[in-house]
């Protein structure tokens, strides 16, 4: 398939060797270093690797990795798919993903929200999937109205087919300059970042899933796909019970988006849906780790909207361990803890750990949620009675637990 120029072939091959070396020496999965090496040797590598393939770019504040995995799983029905499965979602990760599958006719790439304009320009991807936008790690991520504005500029004047969640007003605004949009009603649990009209600043009136600006004409577009509880209604009005294994409403929404993207690639629901049902865990999320008869299910939550989703999945009958860090990838600022409504945990045994456990301890104290402080995750786990326990952790806290308990995926 893609016949790369010699220089790009070399850059791509050397990048792959660097990735292999990095894996062999235990320095990670190698997807970032490999891509960096490749880009250093051939700055145009991403564009060249993307050429002659059918690509989908997946972006959102939450659910990128999972939705990328679901879409990949679906498109495998049609042929080989290149994807950045481990969430290396900036250009080096994209180069690495495409290098590793240089003959794949399809590519499904998770893209950091901020990098979407650049990656879209470079790759000329035919399909872009946009799911949600909410506050996230303010000290390193961009502000979200600004992000949506950048999406608008990037999509304007391109032939890209956008699949977007019309229940999120900011996503709708960000997507609506595109030439072709398929709207999906995927729901919106976290609404705190979209009470105002992104077009004029006026108040948005909401009724169920519908929303409209009180002061201008901006309103929710009519969806072609609708997530209806545990089912999806397709553009022809046919209802498909999802019956996926990934838990929670957020994953049903991700699945609805994935089905719409699959159809944009020409893959009908009856062939895509069985593939989505095969996905059980994504990069360690929702897996269970075990020690001394304690079975801990791992939920990742990186921002306020993510915590709402994790609470939705978590079993209220079980004790719960919360672990929060504030290293670079988590954001060094823990202010967001105050945007999460922890009162839902009242009545459950709650254990608090992680490097910033004192931030969380005070947050829970103010919310009148009793808790037990533990110096380490192991200590918190050992304090449980044998049986099941849920764990919600943010990014590096999650990775620490996974590396201590083996990276079982």
């Amino acid at each position: 398939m893609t016949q790369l120029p010699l220089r790009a072939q070399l850059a791509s091959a050397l990048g792959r060797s660097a990735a292999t070396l990095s894996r062999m020496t235990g320095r990670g999965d190698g997807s970032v270093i490999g891509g960096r090496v490749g880009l250093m040797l051939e700055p145009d590598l991403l564009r060249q690797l993307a050429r002659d393939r059918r690509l989908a770019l997946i972006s959102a504040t939450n659910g990128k990795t999972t939705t990328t995995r679901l879409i990949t799983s679906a498109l495998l029905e049609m042929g080989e798919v290149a994807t950045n499965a481990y969430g290396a979602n900036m250009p080096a990760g994209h180069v690495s993903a495409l290098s590793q599958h240089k003959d794949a006719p399809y590519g499904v790439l998770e893209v950091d929200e901020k990098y979407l304009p650049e990656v879209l320009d470079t790759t000329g991807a035919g399909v872009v999937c946009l799911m949600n936008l909410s506050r996230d790690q303010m000290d390193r991520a961009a502000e979200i109205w600004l992000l949506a504005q950048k999406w608008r500029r990037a999509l304007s004047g391109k032939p890209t087919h956008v699949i977007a969640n019309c229940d999120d007003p900011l996503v709708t605004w960000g997507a609506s300059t595109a030439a072709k949009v398929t709207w999906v009603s995927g729901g919106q649990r976290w609404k705190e970042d979209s009470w105002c009209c992104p077009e004029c600043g006026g108040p948005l009136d909401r009724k169920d899933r519908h929303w409209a600006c009180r002061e201008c004409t901006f309103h929710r577009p009519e969806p072609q796909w609708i997530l209806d509880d545990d089912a999806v209604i397709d553009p022809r009005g046919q209802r498909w019970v999802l019956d996926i294994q990934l838990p929670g409403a957020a994953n049903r929404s991700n699945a609805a988006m994935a089905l719409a993207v699959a159809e944009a690639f020409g893959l009908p629901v009856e062939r895509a849906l069985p593939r989505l049902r095969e996905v059980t865990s994504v990069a360690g999320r929702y897996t269970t780790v075990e020690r001394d008869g304690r079975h801990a299910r791992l939920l990742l939550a990186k921002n306020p909207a993510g915590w709402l989703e994790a609470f939705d999945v978590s079993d209220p009958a079980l004790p719960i361990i919360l672990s929060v860090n504030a290293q670079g990838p988590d954001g060094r600022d823990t202010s967001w803890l105050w945007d999460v409504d922890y009162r839902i945990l009242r009545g459950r045994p709650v254990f608090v750990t992680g490097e910033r456990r004192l931030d969380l301890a005070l947050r829970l104290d103010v919310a009148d949620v009793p808790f037990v402080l533990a110096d380490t995750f192991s200590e918190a786990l050992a304090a449980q009675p044998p049986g099941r326990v849920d764990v919600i952790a943010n990014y590096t806290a999650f990775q620490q637990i996974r590396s201590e308990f083996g990276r079982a995926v």
Partner: protein
Amino acid sequence: MPSDSTLRIVWIYPDLLSTYGDQGNALVLEQRARRRGIDAEVVHVRSADPVPETGDIYLIGGGEDRPQILAAERLRRDGGLHRAIARGAAMLAVCAGYQIMGSTFGGEEGQPVDGIGVLDISSTRGPARAVGELVAEVDSALNLPTLTGFENHMGVTQLGPGVKPLSQVVTGVGNGNGFEGCYAGHVVGTYLHGPALARNPALADLLLTWSAGDLPPLDDRWYEALRTERLSAVLPR
């Protein structure tokens, strides 16, 4: 219905100015009042609604450039906050909200935008974003312990003769000239964004005292544990 003795905490425009944890200040004030047996309620005032004049403590938070400009326009048109402050109500204005209280601030492209003029300050857009932990020693007249918090802004704020600096910066950027924040009467402005009062319960109590009089001490174990941990992580040993 709240009775006359209910302490009313008015959170201004959470739909426009609540980027990151700003709710924390309302929750901390409410909790610290209630634990002392004072009835307290938090009133959320959306930007389409009038600002009530009869609140006890007003809070306004941080936000992006566009929402900040919208909020300033609406507050000026509404006038409720001006009347509340003239009446002597207490106020904590944070980050973008702090800048709005002045005469001007910098918009998206750095252009000057009119503030609402309740504090004698003016702000511009600085050359670089100030992001990180901030520690500052509070003006001795206020008798408060060291301020600790997190800042994330591009503003540089000049203080006029009508306000006093809230604190002197030990680590961080603050107003950009060695001071952090300002106060005048019962109005306090600060770049400590988000839940500034969670890290500084004594500042929360100062606002409460201005509204409710002298207060008995509380069990501040978790506040103190967090303060100690943060200060020791940030300050040179």
